[in-house]
């Protein structure tokens, strides 16, 4: 369905678990929308399984198994419920991929306590939820048809559209699209006319606004 996806290197880094937490949030969010990328990540996970089979095994401590068993059995007695990890059995009907933010947002996207940035742009900050130094993470809401001031990036920026869409000098983007931008891009996105645009933005350095909008920097993170 989506037309813009993370590139193969990003998906591989995600499957290998070697990308940062903020980047993985952006990828995970895209996976909620994109069957093709879910499928590809699944294949790349198989790659991990295959590599695990072909690795040269390291020697483990002789008594490690017995020690583990002893601790497992003592725990299992005190806590008869064996399954502890999420998701709980009631979640089992979920077949694909759950919105990774679902458990952390106080309410639905539409009812979030949005923080107003300008008349047409507001945000809901997630930086403390992700809590990785050097990253700003937020949900952004742009009123239908509104234009975001021209800006450039020092680092990179990932955007995943959760609803609505926007366009910029390079294309038109819709729900589920994953857009990666780096320092070489200078752009001014405009939300599509028919509805408000809500998206997740992951930014690894403050935005730099060109022109006089720079006074807004760095509080208005949006692409």
């Amino acid at each position, binding site marked *: 369905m989506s037309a813009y996806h993370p590139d*193969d290197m990003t998906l591989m880094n*995600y499957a290998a*678990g070697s990308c940062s937490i903020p980047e993985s949030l952006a990828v995970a969010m895209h996976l909620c929308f994109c069957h093709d990328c879910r499928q590809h990540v699944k294949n790349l996970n198989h*790659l991990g399984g295959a590599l695990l089979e072909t690795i040269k095994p390291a020697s483990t401590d002789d008594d490690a198994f017995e020690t583990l068993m002893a601790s497992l059995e003592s725990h299992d007695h005190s806590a008869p419920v*064996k399954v502890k990890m999420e998701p709980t059995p009631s979640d089992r009907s979920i*077949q694909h991929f759950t919105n990774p933010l679902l458990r952390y947002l106080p309410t639905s996207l539409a009812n979030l306590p949005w923080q107003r940035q300008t008349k047409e742009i507001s945000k809901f900050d997630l930086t403390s939820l*992700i809590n990785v130094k050097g990253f700003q993470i937020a949900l952004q809401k742009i009123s239908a048809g509104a234009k975001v001031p021209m800006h450039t990036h020092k680092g990179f920026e990932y955007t995943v559209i959760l609803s609505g869409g926007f366009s910029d000098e390079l294309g038109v983007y819709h729900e589920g699209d994953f857009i990666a931008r780096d320092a070489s891009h200078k752009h001014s996105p405009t939300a599509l006319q028919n509805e408000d645009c809500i998206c997740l933005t992951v930014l690894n350095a403050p935005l730099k606004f060109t022109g006089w909008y720079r006074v807004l920097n760095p509080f208005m993170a949006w692409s």
Partner: protein
Amino acid sequence: MNDSTATNDSPDWGALLARVAEHDDKAAFRAIYQHFAPRIKAYAINQGFSQHAEVLVQEVMTSVWRNAEKYSESLASVSTWVFTITRNQRIDILRKLNRTRAEVVIETEDLWQIPTEDTTICSIQNLSTEKFVTAALEKLPEEQMIALRKVYYEGKTHEEVAEELNIPLGTVKGRLRLSLQKLRVMFEAKEI
């Protein structure tokens, strides 16, 4: 299915895991442990985890014991399932080491989800997928395989790989890109 003799000899991990799930079967769990623990440990060491390698092994195997019933052949082979648990636990340990205080932060399991059920794909298809992936890997040129292994499995940056192999950074990136392209073509040709 005539290419590999090694996989034909390996035990039916899925059946062993089912015995762990249904009867807390210690012997079955021991067999799984003996196969996977040394591999998880090697992975941990490759990832620069030497100090916490044993911790990772114990965390992963605890998870395998407690969640055996969540494994389903329709989702992945056992080695892929164990890999995804290992990957997540490694990330989790790293995150905990870096955390300064108890905060509400997003769980690793929400970011790297291990699906618990998928009725859309039949199990036979999935197991053949894994064999297929192994075969696809064998078709990669050695130099691409080495670069891929270092990045995927040892968590090396492209710069580190370039330095280690004493080749230009552009060459590393080129090899990786080619290997991923080839894998994608093979995956898609198979239509899995």
